[in-house]
């Protein structure tokens, strides 16, 4: 069986190319559909792992510090992410609360845990136990992680309420913003490079 490890397939039109090694600022495109084949990823495994830990810390901030607090005539209320899920769950749409919990809390934390698991073994140039299923789960979880959606929603709420009430964005909101950006970077498609490295 021939070794096809260094081939790459365009995900838009299934054209097969040889893998090339890119340097900074370089991107390879599919000649048939002009879709992006490969992009230079400046992150080493070690950097990825470090950023994953950072993201984990940010996740803790985002979940334990209030995202925002509102203040109306002395009536003060502040909410963390978990509070918002609880608030949804007491209403008639408990199911939505479950979805929200998965999308903004559970999926990201699983992604981070899997990344840490896989990357810490990759740092030692080893495949982690259950490497295959971990990699597949990372791929499965990606569409379920909707931190950026949550961030947008929170920011819309902050701007809209700002005229009516005193709205104070909390530490949680900033942590959430940074976390959602890092998640895009860390848990994107580039993770498939690990298949080639290990």
């Amino acid at each position, binding site marked *: 069986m021939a070794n096809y490890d260094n081939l790459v397939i365009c995900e838009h039109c299934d054209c097969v190319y040889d893998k090339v090694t890119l340097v900074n600022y370089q991107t390879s495109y599919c000649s048939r559909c002009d879709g992006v084949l490969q992009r230079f990823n400046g992150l080493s495994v070690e950097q990825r792992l*470090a950023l994953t830990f950072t993201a984990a810390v940010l996740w803790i901030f985002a979940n334990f510090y209030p995202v925002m607090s509102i203040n109306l005539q*002395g009536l003060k209320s502040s909410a963390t992410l978990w509070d918002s899920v609880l608030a949804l769950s007491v209403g008639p749409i408990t199911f939505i609360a479950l979805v929200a919990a998965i999308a903004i809390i559970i999926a990201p934390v699983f992604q981070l845990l899997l990344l840490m698991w896989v990357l810490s073994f990759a740092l030692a140039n080893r495949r982690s136990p259950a490497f295959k299923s971990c990699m597949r789960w990372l791929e499965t979880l990606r569409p379920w992680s909707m931190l950026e959606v949550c961030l947008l929603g929170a920011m819309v709420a902050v701007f809209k309420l700002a005229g009516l009430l005193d709205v104070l964005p909390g530490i949680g909101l900033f942590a959430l913003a940074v976390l959602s950006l890092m998640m895009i970077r860390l848990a994107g498609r580039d993770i498939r490079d690990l298949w080639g490295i290990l």
Partner: protein
Amino acid sequence: MTLKATDGPKLPGKAPIKTRRFSVSLVWIVPIVAVLVGISLVVHSLMQEGPTITLNFKTGSGLTANKTVVKYRNVVIGTVSDVELSDDQKSVNATIKLVKQAESFTREDSQFWVVRPRIGAGGVSGIDTLLSGDYIGADIGQSSARAKKFTGLENPPPITYGEPGKRFTLRTQNLGSVDIGSPVYYRKIPVGQVVAYALDADGKGVNIEVFIHAPNDAYVTENTRFWNASGIDVNVGANGFAVKTESLSSLLVGGIAFRAPEYSPNDQPAGEEKAFDLFEDQQTALAPPSGKAQYLSLRFDQSLRGLKVDAPVEFLGIEFGKVVSVNLDFDVKKRSFPVNVGIVIYPQRLGQAHLKMLEALKHDPNDEAAGIKLIGTFIENGLRAQARSGNLLTGQLYIALDFYPKAEKVVFDSTARPATIPTIPGSLEQLQEKLESMVNKINQLPIERIAGNLDSNLVELRKGLTQFNAKTLPGVQTTLADVSKTLQSASSTLAEDSPQREQLTQTLDELGRMSRSLRELSDYLGRHPESLLRGRPDNAPPMDLKAPPRN
């Protein structure tokens, strides 16, 4: 060293390579910074975290975990982190997380209460909580001891610690309509309020604690009198009808007023926590001090209906004491029921008279035996007690001490305690006696005999009358008939056309004529007196030419 041709240039040797077992890239700074930030946040919040205390409230109304705040001077000093039932399910425990700066609120005597809208007679409070929700109000204590558990007050304390002013304690028999928060007036200006009240340890009185705000607390002096200004003071006197009250709110919620008597020399502002008596009303409060009380006993042999405890005791019309007891007694010797009346008198209330008496008699008011002896001499001079009627309508009695020099002498027992003042019957009693003696005299009159005589006289009279009717009256009747006949004939005689009258007229005419001829005769005789002797000459002229013609 020489280079040989065979020696080509030496290949560079390989530099020794050391492989570090761990090579740490700079990227790890990022998570480290994140962790440091996290740690700093945690440390900061730990540093900010003040003590946690537990408040015990009767109900959890208005308390919400993580929402209800604790405020002092409207600044948040903590939040309720948990509200749960107490172990015995009789109250609610609220766990409070105080901020670091509010550490002093853990002093043992700090106070906590729930601020909610309240409408009372004294006003409306806590309106702002209608929007913001209830919060817990706090007040710092002053004790140096710290506590973890506090009992929440049901009502906000009227005075916060550290407010300038003074506290005073007022002793009274009952609370009246005074309540916590009732105003304290000085010259009708509210200058303080009632902050607490409690029963005495033995339950025989009430201690009311009042707080007078600075700077008006300076007007509370050593001589100041406090009185209950609740309700209306209605006075009916010779000057008419007077209604007095401090203010409308004192009518509703009660109140206390204070003032020093007009004449109070060497008055000093009273010290903190000084105790005063709370009088019933302004009049008793500002009355001159009663001085030393003297207990006396009176013994009446009459019914004392209308004599009540607290009835006044007057000396020559000046009130100077009151009745303290009215008891029925049994006299073994006389087998009668006298009434024992205990009175207390305050000789000092006699004022000038008392002072002069002390001076003149060199009497020491504290020498009891001498005082009794003095009373003894007064009794020698006729001092007697009498129960007099103060009000004829209601029959209220009062005790009057007066001098009756004519009163019977009595022996005064100067050893008995309390001293006994002899009594004489009351004025109404005397009146009754007089009436009784009068009735007795009337009783003694021989009414029956008088009645018998009168009866026989009447019988005689009736007999006489019968006789009169039977015999005298018919005679009278016939006489009257005769009289009537006589009168009738007389009237017929005098009638216009009666012959008698005709004759009378003729007779009268004749009489007239006769008198005329007599006059002529007299005239003639006047002119001719000689004719009496000689007779009438023949040529004599007619007697009177002017005379009317004869008929």
